[in-house]
């Protein structure tokens, strides 16, 4: 009994080790916040490992885990869109002081070591260009050209028709080239 449990544990650890970088990288590029990406990556692995019994081996394991990670990122981005502060501060602020206290500080970038690390990691032209893509284009381009998934796998991961995935990837590449050319000019 004990050895069987240990065997399962070892297999789980191996899965986390094998996928931690690709899953974390996708999430980090989606939400552009290290701590949050790590929370979402943890959430993804816990969900996957706790539901491993329901995994259907007809599908690639990588498609399954990327689907769960992408759903976590998209859910978060949708929530964040709803909660986004305006430049005037929180919608709940009732006085000028409250508005000023809750307004985003545009000049604050890179103040903490974590922010400095994020600026270093995600500060390049190509990373900025990826960040400007709409989330569905961003996921598609990352899955295709960073992770090397086929169009068919991406369609399964995102539950989209193959034609839509192709369109998204072609448009995303066009947009990326446009953003990069703008920056170089």
């Amino acid at each position, binding site marked *: *009994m004990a050895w*069987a*449990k240990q065997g*399962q*544990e070892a297999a*789980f*650890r191996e899965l*986390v*080790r094998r996928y*931690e*970088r*690709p899953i*974390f*990288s996708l999430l*980090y590029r989606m939400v552009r916040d*290290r701590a949050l*990406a*790590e929370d979402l*990556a*943890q959430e993804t*692995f*816990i969900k996957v*490992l*706790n539901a*491993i*019994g329901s995994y259907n081996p007809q599908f690639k394991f990588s498609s399954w885990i990327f689907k769960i990670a992408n759903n976590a990122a998209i859910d978060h981005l949708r929530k964040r869109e709803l909660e986004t502060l305006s430049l005037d501060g929180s919608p709940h602020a009732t006085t000028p002081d409250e508005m000023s206290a809750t307004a985003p500080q545009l000049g604050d970038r890179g103040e903490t070591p974590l922010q400095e690390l994020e600026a270093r*990691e995600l500060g390049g032209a*190509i*990373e900025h260009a990826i960040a400007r893509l709409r989330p569905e284009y961003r996921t598609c*381009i990352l899955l295709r*050209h*960073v992770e*090397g998934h086929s169009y068919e796998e991406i369609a399964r991961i995102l539950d989209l028709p193959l034609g839509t995935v*192709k369109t998204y990837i*072609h448009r995303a*590449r066009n947009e*990326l*080239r446009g953003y*990069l050319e703008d920056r170089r000019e």
Partner: protein
Amino acid sequence: MTDPLLLHLTPDETELWAQGLLPATRDAHVAQCAECRTIAERERKLIRELARLTRFAPEFGFVERVMAKVKIPTPSGPHFRPHTNS
């Protein structure tokens, strides 16, 4: 039927060219069409740039933090026992 030597590349074919996978008959078109070659070369540059992007790592100890929260199934069946070995 239109001569494959005269047809411009589709976006799918442009990607294939960038990956070195375009069939020779279509490759011959790229060799003679400056417009397709410019587009395909720009595409290849972007695809290479994307493929070179860093794979970031989470903070040290990530595996342990995940394992501390995962339930390891016992061999006896559908019972789950929280993992406590961390």
